[in-house]
């Protein structure tokens, strides 16, 4: 199948093959790449969750690097009444500093101990993710 695809790309070009596959309901390269990227972010989120300390019983937590400028901390749980609770904290890199926003509210600049803690968390994230997910040597890069 892969050989056929490569042959088709040689004959017709990759864009034409991708377009044809998309028309036939098959995933094209961009869709696959996007899906794989999402999968790896989800795996990173599981690693990142542990970096922030013990996860309270019944909580679901994610902490991940979404892109070069955005980090997300999300947590959800059911309260004593069985009602769903959650919060999302966005950390965004701005030339002036690290901006934090909780549940889509106002941006606030991180300072002091909290800033140091966030920096440490990103450092630990980088290290743990590399160790657990990306430790195999890559043969090519984008």
């Amino acid at each position, binding site marked *: 199948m892969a050989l056929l695809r490569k042959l088709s790309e040689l004959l017709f070009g990759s864009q034409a093959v991708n377009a044809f596959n998309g028309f036939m309901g098959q995933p094209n390269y961009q869709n696959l790449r996007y899906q794989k990227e999402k999968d790896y972010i989800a795996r990173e989120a599981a690693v990142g969750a542990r970096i922030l300390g013990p996860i309270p019983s019944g909580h679901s937590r994610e902490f991940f690097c979404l892109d070069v400028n955005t980090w997300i901390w999300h947590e959800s749980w059911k309260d004593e009444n069985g009602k769903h609770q959650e919060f999302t904290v966005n950390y965004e890199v701005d030339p002036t500093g690290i901006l934090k926003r909780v549940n889509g509210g106002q941006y606030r600049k991180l300072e*002091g101990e909290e*800033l140091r*803690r966030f920096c440490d968390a990103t450092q630990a994230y980088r290290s743990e993710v590399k160790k657990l997910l990306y430790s195999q040597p890559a043969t090519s890069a984008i």
Partner: protein
Amino acid sequence: MQQTLQTPLHPTPGNFSGSVEYTPQTPTPEGPATKEQVENSAPLILDKVQAEVLVALGEVATPDEKQPQVTSEMPNERTQAQYTDEVLVIPVATVEVPKQAEPIPTAVEAVRRVTDNASVTMNERLAQVAVDLEREGYGLAA
């Protein structure tokens, strides 16, 4: 109202507005995430976050669009009062990170460190995606 960043709290269920003093976290007894836990993880918030924050991966609002509020004043109104910015402070990382009583980073230094950590992680992620696609016969067609 002044923020109380000097007394960060550790979030626990139903305790996002209390006055529990922060205590440093001991390493989680569960240890770092296992490969199985990582493999079995599922994205919970990613789609929602992407829908709300990003148009697509890699496309982040520019600083001008963010219009960050870097004032130390708290917002007058909160949509979810119990989850205020000042209590959702990132906990101490429990994995090994260099702890040498470093001074609190400046905003510029923090931006450099966080960006560096994100860039390295992103590069490793994209490289791994490329390797996976190559293995599946898609190569670098795009």
